[in-house]
């Protein structure tokens, strides 16, 4: 057994007391002696057992030396190992919707409240420690739990503000999408940046005066203070009750934050599609048949809108990743009680997708690294890619061929009023946007297995399977 078979998680380096390893679809975590000791104490606590049983904390067990399949040199680095239940698809806060971030924030606060009430604490407060499994937030970073030191303040408070509260404020109070801010800085929206973003009038919004304005003032004033504030607070009698007061106030504040997901261009699309119900049924049937025939495990629905076709896929496969550029549409998909649990809705712009970034550009990865689709649905999207985002059609099909072996793609003809609208105020430089061009490009990479024409031939669906390439001489 060699080290190369076990892969170290590039994003798990911050805590010196542990490290995450991936091995044959299994997830392990090496722990230092003190972290292992803390973990063992934690597992004895009823509050922790309850959190695991209710699915709020990821299923985890300590494994013995004999059960541990990792290489010996890795085993020697740590006092002990845990195994975690795997998460189907890892996602990041800048891919979540407002309600997903809010749900993650509520979980984080719930865990802090439970921990502090039971003599434990959480050493940090980052949404990267939370993942969505069956559309519910789950906490995955067990060594974040530590024994509470009496007299210590809530150490994750500032991080909670920067990575949960301020992004939620931006969406709820300013109506601006928070995702670009979370993608711009790995540590979120810092206190000074938040203070600059929220003006005088915003200070009268709930929570802004204290958590943004006052925190930024205190931060400027005492940021470089030589005082040991931690020990001053301790000797002045700071205690766990005070943390609980603050956490409970924060819970109330987060609960009240609302963003009304309306007014988007595409959020209402499914209710206003421009083809007949009969065509719609045929389209659904075509997609269902393809998925039943091809039996993919993981389906990506790119440009999913409110997810009507994701739902068809979800009934026939184990995992659907549904992405759309439109925050409103994805938010509706997430909030819809009828959305099946095996759909993971994510906000993603194909022309500006999640990058590889953070430390060594490996800490956070692109979506393709985290999920490999067996089949991709690309419905009523190509005109947006080619005409709106100016991506050449040939490049788009080439990218799809690199992403997936199986593809269902819809062509929307120039006669379709959606395309007419896109071209209305644009110089038509899109000579590559034609049925012939699409079919020719598809045939370079794929074999077209089936075709369905709908809407009087203005729209066509192609079910494609990648050609097996035998020519390796180009390398």
């Amino acid at each position: 057994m060699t080290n190369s078979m076990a892969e170290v998680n590039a994003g798990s380096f911050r805590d010196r007391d542990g490290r995450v390893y991936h091995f044959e679809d299994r997830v392990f975590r090496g722990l230092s002696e003190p972290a292992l000791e803390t973990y063992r104490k934690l597992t004895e606590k009823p509050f922790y057992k309850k959190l695991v049983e209710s699915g709020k904390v990821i299923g985890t067990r300590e494994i013995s030396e004999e059960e541990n399949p990792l290489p010996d040199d890795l085993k020697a680095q740590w006092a002990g190992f845990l195994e975690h239940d795997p998460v189907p698809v890892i996602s990041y806060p800048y891919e979540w919707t407002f309600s997903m971030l809010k749900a993650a924030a509520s979980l984080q606060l719930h865990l802090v409240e439970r921990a502090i009430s039971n003599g434990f604490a959480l050493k940090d407060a980052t949404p990267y420690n939370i993942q969505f499994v069956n559309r519910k937030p789950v906490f995955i970073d067990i060594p974040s739990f530590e024994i509470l030191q009496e007299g210590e303040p809530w150490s994750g408070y500032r991080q909670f503000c920067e990575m949960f509260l301020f992004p939620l404020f931006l969406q709820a109070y300013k109506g601006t999408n928070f995702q670009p801010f979370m993608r711009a800085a790995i540590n979120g929206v810092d206190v000074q940046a938040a203070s600059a973003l929220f003006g005088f009038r915003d200070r009268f919004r709930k929570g802004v005066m204290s958590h943004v304005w006052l925190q930024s003032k205190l931060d400027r004033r005492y940021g470089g203070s030589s005082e040991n504030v931690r020990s001053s607070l301790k000797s002045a009698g700071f205690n766990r009750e005070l943390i609980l007061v603050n956490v409970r106030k924060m819970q109330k504040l987060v609960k009240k934050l609302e963003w009304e997901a309306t007014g988007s261009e595409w959020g209402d699309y499914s209710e206003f599609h421009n083809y007949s119900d009969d065509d719609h049924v045929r389209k659904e049937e075509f997609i269902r048949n393809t998925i039943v025939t091809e039996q993919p495990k993981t389906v990506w629905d790119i440009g999913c809108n409110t997810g009507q076709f994701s739902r068809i896929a979800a009934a026939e496969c184990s995992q659907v990743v549904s992405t759309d550029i439109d925050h409103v549409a994805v938010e509706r998909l997430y909030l819809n009680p009828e959305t099946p649990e095996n759909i993971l809705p994510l906000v993603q712009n194909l022309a500006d997708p999640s990058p590889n970034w953070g430390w060594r550009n490996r800490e956070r990865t692109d979506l393709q690294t985290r999920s490999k689709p067996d089949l991709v649905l690309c419905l009523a999207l190509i005109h947006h890619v080619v005409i709106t985002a100016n991506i050449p059609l040939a490049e788009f099909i080439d990218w799809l061929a690199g992403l997936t072996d199986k593809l269902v793609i819809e062509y929307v003809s120039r006669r379709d009023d959606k395309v007419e609208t896109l071209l209305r105020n644009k110089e038509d430089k899109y000579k590559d946007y034609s049925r012939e061009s699409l079919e020719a490009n598809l045939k370079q990479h794929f074999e077209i297995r089936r075709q369905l024409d709908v809407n009087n031939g203005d729209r066509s669906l192609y079910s494609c399977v990648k050609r097996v390439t035998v020519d390796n001489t180009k390398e």
Partner: protein
Amino acid sequence: MRIFITVLLMLIFTDAVAYLDPGTGSMLLQVILGGIAAVGVAIKLYWHKLRAWFGMAKKEETEDESA
């Protein structure tokens, strides 16, 4: 109440420096936001500081500062 504690804390820690240390201000804010539950803590913080100013600090506190 919040204003009272804020003013109290503003009086205690007076040195302002340009670079940022994560959390000092955020820790103090937790006392301010603690409201009534934090009044005792704020007053004690003030009292310790006052004693230090008048050279009445406890021995271990002086040692801490020299360390």
